[in-house]
């Protein structure tokens, strides 16, 4: 007999509602993925970097920006801008204060002559959907970043880290344009409860990972950080708050170079 029978009943109802929601979501994402596969080329073409306006990207009414695709959408090989090298699945989406909307995609590199030098294995690609311009108004042509394999992170299995500068680091006539925001992104094991960035300066940023898909191993994270935090590392924590791995150091311009 429970001490608080009401709570037991509430939790039973809550579990039933969650199960029903998960069932509906599974049916919905299948239908969405099928429909979105047809629309995906048109959507990505209209959000291409060449059509983006310089200046304050948030002020424009006329900007041609389409939000991220629903999580679970599969972008077929050859579709999208740039054309995807293999089927690519949207695994997480979100927004950050400066970069705005982003979309994270997972795919596999099966090797082959079209991608010389790119490690085989699982790939992760981050797209900033409406990249903000530099402070002098010059548009940033690069909206994407990605990597394949687990190069360099063999001691942290299931955990990877990459960085995307927004806008991209640029040197023009002796002037250095530092990014305003660095998106640190990657994959974490499914048992991760938090992903944490810590810096010597005492800064600590904790986020909950985005839950991945059934068909793709791991969960995912995208953390916006300011450049020049000092010596900084990223790690994941388990449900008890215990460190999940030895951690991975962040790179310039997050760390001071």
């Amino acid at each position, binding site marked *: 007999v429970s*001490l*608080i029978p009401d*709570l037991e009943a*509430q939790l039973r109802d809550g579990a039933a509602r969650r199960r029903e929601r998960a069932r509906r979501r599974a049916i919905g994402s299948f239908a969405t993925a099928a429909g979105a596969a047809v629309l995906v080329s048109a959507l990505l073409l209209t959000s291409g970097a060449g059509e983006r306006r310089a200046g304050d990207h948030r002020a424009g009414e006329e900007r041609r920006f389409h939000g991220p695709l629903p999580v679970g959408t599969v972008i077929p090989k050859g579709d999208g801008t740039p054309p995807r090298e293999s089927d690519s699945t949207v695994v997480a989406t979100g927004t950050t204060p400066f970069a705005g909307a982003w979309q994270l995609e997972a795919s596999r590199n099966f090797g082959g002559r079209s991608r010389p030098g790119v490690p085989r294995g699982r790939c992760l690609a981050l797209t900033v959907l409406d990249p903000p311009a530099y402070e002098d108004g010059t548009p940033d042509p690069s909206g994407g970043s990605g990597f394949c394999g687990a190069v360099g992170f063999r001691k942290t299995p299931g955990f990877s880290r990459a960085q995307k500068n927004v806008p991209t680091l640029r040197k023009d006539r002796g002037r250095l344009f530092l990014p305003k925001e660095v998106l640190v992104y990657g994959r974490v094991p499914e048992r991760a409860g938090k992903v944490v960035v810590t810096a010597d300066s005492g800064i600590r940023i904790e986020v909950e990972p985005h839950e991945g898909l059934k068909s793709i191993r791991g969960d995912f994270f995208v953390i916006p950080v300011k450049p020049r935090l000092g010596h900084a590392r990223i790690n994941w924590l388990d*449900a*008890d708050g215990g460190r999940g791995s030895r951690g991975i150091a962040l790179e310039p311009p997050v760390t001071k170079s």
Partner: protein
Amino acid sequence: VDDTDWRRVSDDELLRRARREPDAFAAFYSRHERLVLGFFVRRVGDAEVAADLGAETFAAALAAIPRFRRRREPPTAWLLGIARNTLAMSRRRGRVEARARRRLRMPRLDLTDEVLERIEGLNGTALELLGGLPPREREAVKARVVDERDYTEIARDLRCSEAVVRKRVSRGLAALRDQMEETK
């Protein structure tokens, strides 16, 4: 295993089945409510607050079930980890965290004096039972659950490996749970 006899189902199995069977989570709650409520009432000293924190902990556990994977530690350690986070978050915000309950649309708990008395009665029960554990397990459970220390630190102090500490905590918690079942 008889589907309706949840007493014979392990914690790991209960959590696995809870994704599809609401009764499995209700059984998990029923099995561990005393452990969690006792954990809170000892820390906050107020039965009503302990009940709210307990409700939030189990709601957060329910939400985290898709992430739950079998690990070296028993599910009770996972549950107490959520309880510790709930308490820390509530202290930081100066109010009892209710985010997980809101997501599940759980109404506010209506607690009778009798229920509150029973929760207050848990204050000390687990500590008393702790005294009945073999010394090594008692030391490990106290360090991990009561003092909330890291496994690494405990292993250093007890001069043994982390794996040994985890095993002692696991056995100790299982024994405590059995004893609490008996005192129901």
